[in-house]
């Protein structure tokens, strides 16, 4: 299968690989997918106020899945939580020129952003409520 240059670039030089301390109060973690489906994405955000100051990912999946999550971390860094939540999978598809069979990779990346933001919010809501 031919990959777009952007997918190859993210695969060869993935941005923001790594992990943040998931127990930290200002970190939100999203893990989506399942090993038996061939894709698992872990996306983490570090938040100051309502702004994402750092983002890291680790992905088990095909090149398009790695590229989608790598791109997602690039895009959400510096954004507010609401701006990050507004990112859609179609934007990822367009940016990476993903073929139809790889659209699920972009969906997973969108889900990972939402899961990370949601985790951060849950953590901080429950803390402030207790």
């Amino acid at each position: 299968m031919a990959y777009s240059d952007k997918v190859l670039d993210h695969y060869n030089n993935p941005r923001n690989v790594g992990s943040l301390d998931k127990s930290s109060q200002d970190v939100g973690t999203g893990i989506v997918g399942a090993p038996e489906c061939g894709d698992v994405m872990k996306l983490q955000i570090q938040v100051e106020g309502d702004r994402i100051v750092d983002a890291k990912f680790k992905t088990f999946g095909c090149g398009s899945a790695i590229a989608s999550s790598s791109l997602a971390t690039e895009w959400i860094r510096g954004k507010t939580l609401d701006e990050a939540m507004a990112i859609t999978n179609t934007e990822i598809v367009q940016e990476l020129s993903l073929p139809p069979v790889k659209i699920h990779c972009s969906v997973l990346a969108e889900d990972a952003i939402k899961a990370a933001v949601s985790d951060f919010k849950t953590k901080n809501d429950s803390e402030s409520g207790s």
Partner: protein
Amino acid sequence: MKTPIYLDYQATTPCDPRVFEAMAPYFTEIYGNAASRSHAYGWSAETAVDEARRQCAALIGAHEKEIVFTSGSTEALNLAMKGVVEMYASKGKHIVTSLAEHKAVLDTAKHLEKQGCEVTYLAPGPDGRHSIEQIEGALRDDTIMVAIMWANNEIGVLQPVREIGRLCKERGILFLCDGTQAAGKIPVDVEADGVDLLCVSAHKIYGPKGVGFLYVRRKNPRVRLVAQMDGGGHERGMRSGTLNVPGIVGLGKAAEVAREDLEKDAAHSLAMRERFEKRVFAALDHVHINGDEDERLPGCSNLSFAYVEGESLIMGIKDLAVSSGSACTSASLEPSHVLQSMGVGDELAHSSIRFGFGRFTTEDEVDFAADQVIAAVSKLRELSPLYEMVQEGVDLSTVNWTGH
């Protein structure tokens, strides 16, 4: 070193120069139709075909009159299964086969089921092998054929052919063995091994594509088939169609070279595989050999790299021509039916790669390949949330995944 390095010898093999050389005159000089009985062009072609028939028979310990030339193993398997079912319909309608067979057998079996045939599909053990007890337990009074392959094309695992042959003989059941991966790689003797029908494809043994043969036993018992291709009555009426003379000459030469060099080729392939596996296992943890470690083809290594996804791994080893155990690359996310039949979990099936070594593989190529695999797996594991979790001591089977 020429890249990509070819490590897909179970998919096909390069044509040996000796084979190519033997074929050449039959395209442009000796171009007669082997069925032309009235002139020298036909006679020369027929002589060449006869010689090839002897060479093919010698490779598997058969008689030359037991060789039916076909376009390859797929056609041979179709002919054997459909031809037997049609011929022996009055005797029974039950076939026993394996879930790990090639699609040429499985899809033909499904076709026959639609026509009223009953098929038992046996699941191999976790090592990819079938026990003789399992096969015996599946036999019925109306079983007419057992179809079990000699060596699996994905994992290279060998089946207990001689025991199956003996069992079938005792029970008066025909034994069809797909010998595509085995012939020319390990000793095959249809008499000693008790095989009644066996197929071989030229391009798996350093011959040309598009030609092969079906061995059809002539004595004890005499196997009869209903032809599936009607026409001029070639190949003793079992397979009509003008013979592919250059292809058959190439098949014959390939069979001859394979027989003469069998020990040398096998020792070389095994040495290459061992060198590769040793290097990989020394550098990486969580690598699994799919299929029985000992009972497998010398040149086949099917490995699963846990916590790494297969397609991304293929991307990372772009200088190697290998096959992935999951069909992701063909746009369907189905893991290999062979690995599934053995009970290999989908995660490991997705991360499996088949490395095939053969006559022309060199030590330098093996070292380069192993190093590229090690580098790619190490890099992808740094990226893998699963590997990270395992390092942290998380049992992945207890995680509540959000499947999609």
